């Protein structure tokens, strides 16, 4: 049985402390990224596109930028960064010599990955507001939803970390899973431009599709019943991968 107590907080807090110690470098991406993407794609390329389904192009991509940032920050936190802590720094070994259990270490890592995604979404919001590409107050919902979406990507990332033979092999999920999602999840062009089988595939197997869909509904705002399906999909996948990550990590670390 998986038993998780309040001690999980000490693991989460350790990562927050490390993040805040180097806050200057950590706080740069969420400010710079949306500016670069909006200028190059939104207002550069966007002048040829003008509108997508009646939405100005910068407004169309703004929620995708938040979704991508959450995906990257949570996924990479629980792949490369967690792997470094586990394998090179032996931080997990040090922690499990205390009353904190291995389940709590892994859960704390994933909750931290989700938190990092949420911090990034929070920092991006004012930038997007300055560009006038997201509506208020509905866009405040980006923040809590970033935690849920972040927890999903963190859990998927942790599953890969649990089975990877070494840090280099983490490049496989990064290029074969994350990069295609970055491009084909209704991020920079609407999904219905793609052939129907690929659309189905995107809805069935690419989590970012659901995240973008919900974030776009939040920032426009324009909610529809499909958002509820996406929310259910994300919630179910999060529970599944969260528990799977703990199982796989136990198998790797308990020897």
């Amino acid at each position: 049985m998986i038993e998780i107590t309040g001690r999980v907080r000490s693991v989460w807090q350790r990562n927050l402390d490390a993040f805040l110690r180097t806050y200057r470098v950590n706080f740069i991406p969420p400010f710079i990224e949306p500016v670069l993407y909006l200028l190059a794609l939104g207002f550069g390329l966007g002048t040829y596109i003008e509108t997508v389904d009646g939405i100005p192009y910068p407004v169309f991509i703004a929620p995708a930028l938040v979704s991508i940032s959450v995906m990257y920050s949570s996924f990479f936190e629980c792949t490369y960064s967690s792997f470094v802590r586990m394998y090179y720094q032996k931080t997990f070994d040090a922690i499990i010599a205390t009353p904190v259990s291995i389940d709590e270490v892994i859960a704390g890592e994933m909750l931290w990955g989700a938190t990092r995604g949420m911090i990034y979404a929070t920092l991006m919001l004012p930038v997007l507001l300055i560009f006038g590409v997201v509506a208020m107050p509905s866009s405040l919902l980006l923040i809590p939803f970033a935690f849920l979406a972040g927890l999903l990507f963190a859990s998927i990332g942790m599953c890969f970390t649990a089975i990877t033979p070494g840090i280099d092999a983490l490049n496989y999920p990064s290029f074969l899973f994350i990069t295609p999602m970055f491009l084909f999840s209704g991020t920079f062009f609407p999904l219905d431009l793609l052939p129907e089988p690929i659309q189905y595939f995107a809805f069935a197997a690419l989590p970012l599709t659901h995240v973008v869909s919900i974030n776009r509904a939040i920032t426009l705002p324009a909610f529809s019943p499909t958002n509820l399906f996406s929310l259910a999909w994300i919630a179910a996948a999060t529970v599944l991968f969260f528990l799977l990550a703990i199982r796989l990590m136990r198998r790797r670390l308990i020897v």
Partner: protein
Amino acid sequence: MKMIQCVSPKTGGTLEVFGMDVDSHQREIKSRLGVVPQENNLDPDFSTYRNLLIYARYFGIPKHEAEQRAEELLAFMQLEEKRDVLIDKLSGGMKRRLIIARALINAPELLILDEPTIGLDPQARHLIWEKLRSLQAAGNTLVLTTHYLDEAERLCDRLVIMDQGKILVEGRPEDLIREHAGSDVVEVERTQKATACLTGLGVTYDVAGDLLQVFTDRPHDVARELLEVCRHEAAVTVRPATLEDVFLRLTGRSLRE
């Protein structure tokens, strides 16, 4: 060791720490243990002082209590000057001292140390020995594994020699030496003449590489006989027997790899 620390599952039999089963009472046992691992696993993202505070948090020690304890331990381990330095900037000996300080943060009833002085220079080793002895003097229980037999001889009240997972002997270091090696060792170069002489005298000896070793309680008699009766010309050394002699006699001289 890992099974005692409740981080590896028990492979068989029964194992109790503080009278509690290691499978069912992991948290209770771990909260009362201090562990000094062989491998350096200090947290490189933080300073010396914050390493102690963050570790205290894993035990659920309240912040003000942890701060006070961390300051005391830095003083005890002579690390105050390095209080705000990142782990990378510490020497090997300082890292080991910090790991010991970290293991003491929860005031453990039992301190487990795995090769606490491995790879350290003599000054650093002596400082750590001094600290461990003062912990012992204060009534703490230490369990220590080591390949350095001089370390075991200095620090241990009770010693177990193990080989390939089996206990060979156990007891106080001085008793083990007396029992398994005798008080002294006479060493001579391994020549045909010396071999013949010792055999002729009816003295039992061990072959150790290019040396012949006689373990005896009357070393001067043996040395005199070698020199006078056999007119042995090369050097004859007499020295007190050590734990290393006991270890090698019990486990043999072949490399164990």
